[in-house]
């Protein structure tokens, strides 16, 4: 019996050893298996760019993990097409750099979202010249093993159209069409405009200045004429100047930008002509102070304290000077009307001014004061645009909520479309 036990024990040990040996052999075999490089590796000129860039696309592999890495290899095309001699441009884990992580929207993606992508650009030791051919390859690296794709030739070139931004063009054209449609409707029938107290108060402020025999102070903001808020401020200045001319009240318009000053001089002159009071127009009603923010603020504060205007208008874009200006104006007892699209300064204006045109109301002022069908139609177009955006926001909110509550993925598809189109 002991003999049998001894033999059986030897058999068990032998079987165990055998198993261990076989498993060791099998793992050693898998370790020796060659790495398979991606089969459908592609290199193309990066679409919708200004040149100097190539995009690499390849499918995901079963071995993709953080332990296995990809290397991007580049040669200027004069070398032999042996990828092992190419320069290693970058290296990253094989479970990263997917098309879905890129900035390409769904309509301009050169491959499916599950594919890998890497964009080679100028900089960091890489110099890609437009029109020159380059050889690009990809290496898979695991431990000390390395496998190469075949080298592919590609030539970077600039493009004439950025298809990634076509959504922007589409939305702009759609909005433009809505605006022009609304204008055509406004020409045929009256369109209701809601009351804007800040603009109703313009007459009141000018009237008060006239009664007190004090001037009107009008500021056009910190930006130059390339900013829409400054243009809107200049347009409102025309209306204010016309009424000030009608009431024969002095107008003071200190400027931070000389070009804005020149434009506003013309606007004011025309306003006085239209009011039938060209003789009352003063060239120096519009004057330049300085482009420096706080020097300008100090000068305007000084004008407020010395001349004590009865009405102060703050239209256009403002920064830290807003409160310095309006608080000084409030201390002089003037009626103050502000209009700005600088959302960060709105609290200061709301706090210190009698009336504030918030954001888009600044742009609506021209239509509100003139009541011309074309201008009013533009406002209606803006409202339709806002209604569309609100509709999309509501649908998006419902879809996102439905996706979270029902724990399904399909709403995400629509949300991704909204995200890319926005």
């Amino acid at each position, binding site marked *: 019996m002991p003999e049998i036990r001894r033999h059986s024990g030897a058999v068990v040990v032998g079987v165990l050893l055998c198993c261990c040996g076989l498993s060791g052999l099998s793992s050693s075999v898998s370790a020796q298996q060659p790495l398979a490089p991606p089969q459908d590796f592609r290199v193309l000129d990066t679409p919708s760019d200004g040149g100097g860039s190539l995009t690499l696309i390849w499918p995901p592999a079963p071995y993709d993990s953080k332990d296995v890495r990809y290397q991007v290899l580049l040669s200027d095309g004069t070398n032999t097409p042996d990828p092992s001699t190419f320069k290693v441009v970058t290296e990253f884990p094989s479970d990263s750099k997917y098309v879905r992580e890129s900035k390409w929207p769904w309509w301009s993606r050169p491959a499916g979202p599950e594919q890998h992508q890497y964009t080679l650009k100028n900089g960091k030791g890489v110099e890609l010249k437009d029109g020159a051919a380059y050889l690009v390859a990809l290496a898979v690296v695991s431990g000390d093993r390395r496998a190469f794709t075949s080298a592919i030739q590609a030539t970077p070139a600039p493009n004439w*159209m950025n298809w990634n931004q076509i959504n922007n063009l589409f939305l702009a054209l759609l909005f433009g069409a809505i*605006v022009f449609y609304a204008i055509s409707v406004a020409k045929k029938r009256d369109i209701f405009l809601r009351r804007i107290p800040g603009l109703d108060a313009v007459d009141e402020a000018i009237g008060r200045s006239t009664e007190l025999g004090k001037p009107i102070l009008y500021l056009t903001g910190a930006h130059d004429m390339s900013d829409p808020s400054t243009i809107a401020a200049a*347009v409102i200045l025309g209306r204010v100047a016309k009424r000030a001319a009608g009431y024969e009240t002095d107008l003071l318009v200190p400027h931070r930008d*000389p070009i804005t000053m020149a434009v506003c001089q013309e606007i004011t002159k025309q306003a006085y002509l239209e009011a039938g009071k060209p003789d009352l127009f003063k060239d120096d009603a519009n004057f330049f102070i300085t482009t420096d923010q706080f020097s300008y603020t100090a000068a305007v504060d000084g004008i407020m304290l010395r001349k004590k205007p009865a009405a102060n208008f703050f239209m256009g874009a403002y920064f830290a000077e807003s409160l310095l200006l309006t608080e000084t104006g409030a201390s002089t007892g003037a009626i103050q009307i502000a209009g700005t699209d600088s*959302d960060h300064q709105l609290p200061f204006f709301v706090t210190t001014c009698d009336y504030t045109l918030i954001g*888009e109301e600044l742009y609506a002022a021209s239509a509100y004061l003139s009541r011309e069908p*074309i201008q009013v139609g533009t406002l209606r*177009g803006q409202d339709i645009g806002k209604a569309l955006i609100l509709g999309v926001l509501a649908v998006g909110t419902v879809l996102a909520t439905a996706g979270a509550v029902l724990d399904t993925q399909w709403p995400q598809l629509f949300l991704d479309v909204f995200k890319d189109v926005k």
Partner: protein
Amino acid sequence: MIFLRRQMPLLITLITGLVFAGQYYVPHPASEQMLTSVTKWLQIIGGFALILGVSSLFHVHAVKIRRKEAGWGYSLVLYASMVATIVVGLWANGKEAVDGTMTAFGWMYNYMMVPLQGTMFAILAFFIASAAYRSFRARSREAAVLLVAAIIVMMGRVPLGEYLIPLSGDVSQWILNVLNASVRRAILIGVSLGTVALSFKIIFGVERSYLGGGKE
């Protein structure tokens, strides 16, 4: 003359407006080059316009001094400091320091201009206090809401406030991230649409009062 004063500027506006709106969608270096050139032109025009501005400044203050209007002494100070800055600036070749030594121009800038600007900016702290006092007097329902929200946010933004009212940190974050952010976004959407609409009106000549009012 009417063509030069009216149609010509509108035509230039239409063409340049459309070209540069299109430029946004063209990534080609030629398009970038065009934008760079035009930006340079604008800088050159801005430089010439500055002469216009400075001459306006000199003219306005010269009239004040000549007529001895109220506060004409300030105009004299402006003239003196402007002439002094120009002379010193030319003397120092526009450099603030030479071989590590501050020039008179640099001294003027660093020890006069910078402190004056800093002083103006510092006044803001006092103005914020006075403006806050005026608005936070709970005279109306809106002012009361403003007051309560402001107190919560202020308490939530400083360590002592959060220590005294532990909930204020979370509530102030909620006010800023949800209420405040949503209202700001609503304003920004309106502003963006207003900007696009105004741009359309200017490019297509619907809005032309910036040319000097009047419809012809």
